[in-house]
């Protein structure tokens, strides 16, 4: 347990440095964000890290704490209309265009898996589509991927964006946590990928998702990652970005948060 005065210290630090509002009642969130930073900095727990930070006021460690708190909280079905559009129109269209071939979907920067599993659960609930779609997911963080693969979420996490009917249909309670059914977990194949690395190959995916990452990147990294994502698209493929991501001039917008290769979209029109 992090003492209330330490929670208040983190909240004040976030407000002062980044104008971030952190709710001290959500101690679980602060704890879960501070734990990886604490490990990286060589402390045995989040409590120990924050206590030391309060004592020594280390500039760099202070920023590490603020940055960890600034990450968006993962949610199931973020912008749920986007998921409805993908399931209702985009994936069926892609399946038709591919004939008998599977539709290949790559979920990049998947974090702890909430979004790719949202897609997987919807596929599992849609007759005829599940067998036609292959889901691949990647992230930079091994730790995030381990958690994602386990499909194990806390009571707080399963209440972020996940409708109760989906929870009942696809999860079981194990102790105080909730675990996703093996059937849905097995629909996703995982790999560690750094989107800044040379990915080679390319052109293999009909749908690529990268939601909310671009906005966090420095300008050079932004352009490189966007270039890699575009290069990964098969002809006629679609890229899904976050509601606040802007791809600039390189891609044509073809739906809500949905983009296609500019040349290909024009020639098809």
């Amino acid at each position: 347990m992090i003492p209330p005065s330490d929670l208040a210290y983190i909240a004040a630090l976030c407000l002062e440095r980044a104008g971030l509002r952190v709710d001290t009642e959500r101690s679980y969130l602060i704890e879960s964000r501070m734990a990886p930073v604490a490990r990286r900095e060589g402390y045995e727990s989040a409590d120990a890290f924050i206590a030391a930070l309060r004592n020594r006021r280390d500039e760099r460690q202070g920023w590490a704490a603020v940055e960890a708190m600034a990450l968006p909280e993962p949610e199931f079905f973020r912008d749920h209309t986007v998921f409805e559009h993908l399931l209702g129109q985009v994936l069926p269209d892609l399946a038709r265009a591919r004939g008998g071939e599977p539709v290949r979907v790559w979920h990049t920067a998947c974090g702890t898996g909430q979004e790719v599993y949202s897609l997987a659960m919807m596929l599992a609930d849609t007759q005829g589509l599940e067998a036609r779609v292959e889901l691949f997911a990647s992230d930079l963080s091994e730790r995030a991927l381990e958690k994602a693969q386990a499909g194990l979420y806390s009571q707080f996490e399963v209440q972020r964006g996940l409708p109760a009917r989906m929870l009942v249909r696809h999860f079981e309670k194990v102790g105080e946590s909730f675990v996703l059914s093996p059937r849905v977990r097995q629909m996703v194949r995982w790999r560690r990928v750094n989107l800044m690395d040379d990915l080679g190959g390319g052109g293999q995916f009909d749908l690529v998702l990268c939601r909310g990452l671009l906005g966090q990147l420095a300008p050079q990294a932004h352009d490189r990652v966007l270039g890699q994502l575009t290069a990964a698209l098969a002809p006629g493929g679609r890229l899904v970005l976050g509601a606040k991501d802007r791809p600039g001039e390189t891609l044509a917008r073809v739906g809500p948060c949905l983009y296609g290769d500019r040349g290909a979209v024009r020639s098809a029109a």
Partner: protein
Amino acid sequence: MKTCLVVDDSRVIRKVSRRILEDLGFEVAEASDGLEALAWCSAVMPDAILLDWRMPLMDGMEFLHRLRAEPGGATPKVIFCTVENEIERIREALDAGADEFIMKPFDGGIVAGKLCYLGLAA
């Protein structure tokens, strides 16, 4: 303005819920058990009901059954908000006609997410 009835025997929970709902732009009424909640609903049906399960006099489940049998009682979106957190209990609530389910402890983000999914908040 959308209206929400908060039904909970804990005054603290009612206060916390009221603050969250008012921030989301709801007009809030409170009841401390199912009987009092039914009286509210027979006067005017709210758009949403945040409903505790275990309460004295009339519990949440009995309230839900009675509400759904009332004229106009199918309209309000009912969100259970309870310490119950077993999948079986959640299924039971949904089968009885609840629209959503929140496990305590909760926060503003969870309430906002559920109301948004039910089309009651942006």
